[in-house]
């Protein structure tokens, strides 16, 4: 482009260099896009070509019938029945159900804890505010994986067994597992009981699950607390003052006036946190909980089917993310303030 050195009388007609055709505003977009498309195509073709050549050489071309072969490994903790004779796809399905189990309980738990923390950061009590702030700052600045192995190896694996186990009302925490009270046969309430030195209860969770769930909730709750805090801060101060001048208490003001208005700011932020919780659940492998990723890793080690396993993993997590986003978008439409 011809740029005149200074603002002044326009140069004589013969001195303006004409714009070359390849810099014409109609042409440039096509040239740029063509160049990008060509680069991407060349790179993809190069990678795919290598992939096909290498896979053919290794005799590993894409097939899916290995999914039907017997898995040959066991999963210690499943909701779907599984054993070593069942095919790989049953193992992967059991892993997926284990992932969903920790994701769903984690979502509920971290939302509850995070919301309480977020609300506490608006408390009139300076000590409570400071403590919440400290919790968030500590948890957010320490890697999640480090927190998970801490919960597992330091906290849960050092729980005592037998009579020394940590006994709370309706819950017993022992090294052999977490025992929860529940309904037994004939719908009566049964608490955990010690029989021959072994705890028995209607509901037993493994310490691996317990550690993973605790770690995920403690971590995600700190982020959700920040989202909730941001949402509450976005509600104009006049709303607080108006509500308290009408005689509403702090709790009534927050739950009936402020939070409903804060939700439209909070929900999109929650979406992000929920998706990262779903993805973070794949760190289960570090604490020995057999989730989808952990089963996939074992499957790959046994079958050598790298490409198929990676595709399955990526596809499943993408689907999980999309599902959470869809749900949250629906919720977002519900909480938007409808104006006339």
């Amino acid at each position, binding site marked *: 482009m011809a740029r005149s050195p200074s603002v002044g009388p326009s140069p004589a007609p013969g001195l303006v260099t004409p714009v070359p055709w390849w810099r014409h505003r109609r042409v440039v977009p096509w040239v740029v896009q063509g160049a*990008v498309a060509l680069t991407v195509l060349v790179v993809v073709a190069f990678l795919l070509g290598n992939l096909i050549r290498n896979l053919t050489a290794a005799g590993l071309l894409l097939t899916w019938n290995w999914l039907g072969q017997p898995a040959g490994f066991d999963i210690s903790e499943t909701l779907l029945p599984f054993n070593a004779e069942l095919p790989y796809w049953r193992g992967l399905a059991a892993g997926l159900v284990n992932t969903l189990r920790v994701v769903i309980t984690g979502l509920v738990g971290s939302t509850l804890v995070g919301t309480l923390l977020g609300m506490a950061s608006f408390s009139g009590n300076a000590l409570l505010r400071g403590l919440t702030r400290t919790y968030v700052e500590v948890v957010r600045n320490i890697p999640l994986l480090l927190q998970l192995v801490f919960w597992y190896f330091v906290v849960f694996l050092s729980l005592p067994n037998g009579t020394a186990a940590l006994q709370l009302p309706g819950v017993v925490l022992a090294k052999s597992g977490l025992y929860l009270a529940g309904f037994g046969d004939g719908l009566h309430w049964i608490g955990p009981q010690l029989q021959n030195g072994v705890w028995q209860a209607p509901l037993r969770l493994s310490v691996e699950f317990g550690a993973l769930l605790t770690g995920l909730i403690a971590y995600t709750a700190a982020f959700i607390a920040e989202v909730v805090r941001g949402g509450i801060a976005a509600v104009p101060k006049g709303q607080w003052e108006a509500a308290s001048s009408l005689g509403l208490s702090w709790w009534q003001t927050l739950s009936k006036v402020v939070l409903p208005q804060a939700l439209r700011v909070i929900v999109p932020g929650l979406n992000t946190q929920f998706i990262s919780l779903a993805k973070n659940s794949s760190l289960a492998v570090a604490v020995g909980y057999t989730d989808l990723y952990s089963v996939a890793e074992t499957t790959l080690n046994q079958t050598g089917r790298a490409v198929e396993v990676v595709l399955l993993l990526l596809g499943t997590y993408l689907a999980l993310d*999309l599902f959470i986003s869809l749900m949250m978008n629906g919720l977002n439409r519900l909480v938007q303030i409808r104006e006339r």
Partner: protein
Amino acid sequence: MTPLLRRLRQDLFATPADGLVTVLLLALIGAGGFAVLHWALGQAQWAVIRANSTLFAVGRYPLDQQWRLWLLTALLAAATGLSWGMLRSHPRPDRGGSLWPRNDWMAVGMVALLSLALPSLLGLALPLQLRWWAIAALLLLLRWLAGRFGPLLPAPLKRCLPLGLPLLYLLGMVLIGGGLALEPVSPSQWGGLMLTLLESSFAILLCFPLGVLLALGRRSDLPLLRWGSVVYIEFFRGAPLITLLFLGQNMLGFLLPGGVAPERVWRAAWVLTLFAAAYLAEAVRSGLAAVPRGQLEAARSLGLSTPQAFTTVVLPQALRVALPSMVGQFISLLQDTTLLSLIGLMELLGTARTVMANPAFLGRNAEVYFTLAVLFWCCCAALGLGSRALERRLNPSTLA
């Protein structure tokens, strides 16, 4: 009642319920604090940290080559002192024109305290302690010299100084990995804090240009660029990092011509870079969205070409807005390097695993994890503090 007491009462004991909460919390904090102190000073056996401090710092880096890392540390300290002094040598009105603002004295105190206390706490041999003191002294000396005599340097030299930083990075790579007449040290021998910092700094430096390009692509009017960027960003943001690292370790060998797949350390570094770029792109995109459209139009109407308008007018403003969320991404990238331990690399957490597998230190999990947590917390908090300081510095309302 004194104002302090009145303030305390208003903040902590405004209502009976508030008072109850305060008392309960105080009891909780007291009990928790006592338990932690009792453990840290009484029960914990810190020998596991003292005996393995070299392993935690540099992994299994060959002993006879470690002078290269000492040299690198000294160079980094020199560069830090020099840039710190140069930054302060132009007093700015928002700092009261001071060459030595109060925060700097606190930083000097921290450096002195750390260099004196940490090596002796770790039980390092006296010659090693002396090296740390010398490095700290070098940092502070250059800070003073640059602050005092920096303004006297000729302007062209001052403009060239920042170029030293990328050169220093390349030099650091050479010092760590070998080459240029230095004996090569295989990446499988790198480890500890060094590997953590190397992987995260590599990914941070390279994901930045890539992320900016992706963000521009996502906001571009050209459909092909836009959709390409969207697909890239959503793919990398949709998958858990561990599955991508897994992909890098298991599938990269298939995607490249036989035998050229890079060393595992570099494979992981590239996966981290590509992953971080997708998140950075979203941070930059929010910054770009905050720049009014009129800025681009005004720049174009002044005769700047589109690339010129972006690099000189739009991007500087967008990056300033995006700075906090970008640093947030860098902090999570630093934390994400712990995942490399799951694919068998010897960064900090991987080193911790090998240390705890040593029969001599069996059951010392709490001490090791506690130390790592403190280390990560300090690194991340320092990044956050730095970001806030930079934000203040770049804030146009305080620019002279």
